[in-house]
């Protein structure tokens, strides 16, 4: 069994890197866009709030695999032809943005209303109220679901092998096709996913501790 794994490692390494790369891009891009749209959802005027609300509700109501297939197989019909890697990143990012919007909304709404009043009363303009009063308090409510979402992104990225992207799962399947020993390979693959996500959850616990001093 061990020699099978040793044999597989060189084949899995590129896939592992693709999985990490896709996860990183997805998480980074979706976090930036999701935070901006989430703030828009909470504080924006109606013409901004409604489209964001609609986007988030619709996307979160679609299975992520359907979304990936839609981007990869559906969008070319509109003339937008994406490589499998680009389609995978786009599909996962769209899905993730919708989640981050909700984390942001929940986190901001967890801050008592009086905080905004007090920040207004001392004369802070909107962006400073957000930066110095709301965000530091919202961040501790934002981090736990967001970090959960990061592990979800790593796990969810396994779906992109179905678009033919050469990620970790794709690599495992290729080796299995050659060695006909699925048990050892899938166990090893699961272990790799687990190690990545366990490292993330350790980091997440450390971050949560970092912000736990804030109490109302």
């Amino acid at each position, binding site marked *: 069994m061990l020699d099978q794994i040793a044999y597989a490692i060189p084949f899995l390494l590129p896939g592992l890197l693709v999985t990490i790369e896709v996860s990183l891009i997805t998480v980074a891009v979706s976090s930036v866009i999701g935070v901006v749209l989430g703030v828009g959802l909470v504080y924006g005027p109606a013409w901004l709030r409604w489209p964001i609300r609609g986007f988030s509700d619709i996307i979160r109501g679609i299975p992520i695999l359907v979304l990936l297939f839609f981007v990869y197989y559906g969008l070319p019909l509109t003339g937008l032809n994406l490589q499998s890697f680009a389609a995978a990143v786009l599909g996962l990012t769209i899905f993730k943005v919708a989640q981050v919007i909700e984390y942001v909304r929940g986190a901001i709404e967890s801050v*008592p209303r009086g905080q905004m*009043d*007090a920040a207004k009363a*001392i004369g*802070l303009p909107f962006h400073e109220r957000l930066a*110095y009063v709301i965000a530091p308090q919202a961040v501790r409510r934002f981090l736990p679901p967001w970090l959960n979402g990061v592990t979800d992104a790593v796990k969810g990225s396994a779906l992109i092998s179905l678009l033919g992207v050469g990620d970790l799962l794709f690599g495992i399947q290729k080796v299995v096709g050659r060695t006909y020993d699925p048990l050892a390979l899938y166990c090893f693959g699961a272990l790799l996913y687990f190690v990545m996500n366990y490292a993330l959850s350790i980091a997440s616990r450390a971050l949560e501790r970092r912000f736990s001093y804030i109490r109302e």
Partner: protein
Amino acid sequence: MAATSTGTTPLLRIRAVQKSFGSTHVLRGIDLDVARGEVVSIIGPSGGGKTTLLRCVNFLEPYEQGSIAIDGVEVGYRDGETRKRRSERDLARMRAETGMVFQLFNLFPHLTAAQNITLGLTKVRGLGHAEAKDKAMHWLRRVGLADKAERLPSELSGGQQQRVGIARAVAMEPKILLLDEITSALDPELIGEVLDVVLALAADGMTMLTVTHEIGFARDASQRIVFMADGTISAEGPPAEIFSSNQSNERLRSFLGRFSAAHRL
């Protein structure tokens, strides 16, 4: 109409202000002046619009009709006629002219007592950090909390938190201080320490508009009492007149009667 003691323009001038929350008409045409250095207390039954009026003064609540001006400058709108709302930056600048202390303190829980005060001083008043810190310490000393400067709000008692709240508001050197039922959330034994701070500020000549359920405090600290009920000012005058036993205003008399029964004044 409110008499201003100096005869000059009042510092705060409220005219015919109306406001509704949905179908509830909370303010039904309020006229009120507060002169420089004057302390005016608003009393009255819950739901009478007292807090809403106070929140309109620094535009935490927009008002639909009428005018609120501080030092002759309309608060929420660029001009009273077209009711064009001020820009965000403009509003922030206007709000810095008023200080507000809240019923639930609303201290920033992630900042120390001193940082709660320096935030506005550095970001809004543009002071350097050392200067802002000096000023924060000055006001913390004034409210008797110099030794708590580095504490987080969660490490302070309610009365201490509220004194930090007052220090945060006055350190900005506002033209007028708005006090919104600042002792209502406090245990009875902590009320005194907060009111003492307010009385000292009043003695220094700070202009104040307060909403309070502390009738004794209203009587001792204010030059004028305003009795609000059902969104209108139902009676107004110096404390001696308002609290006099032969008060002719029926609503006020019954309010005070119920009040003294409950508080054995």
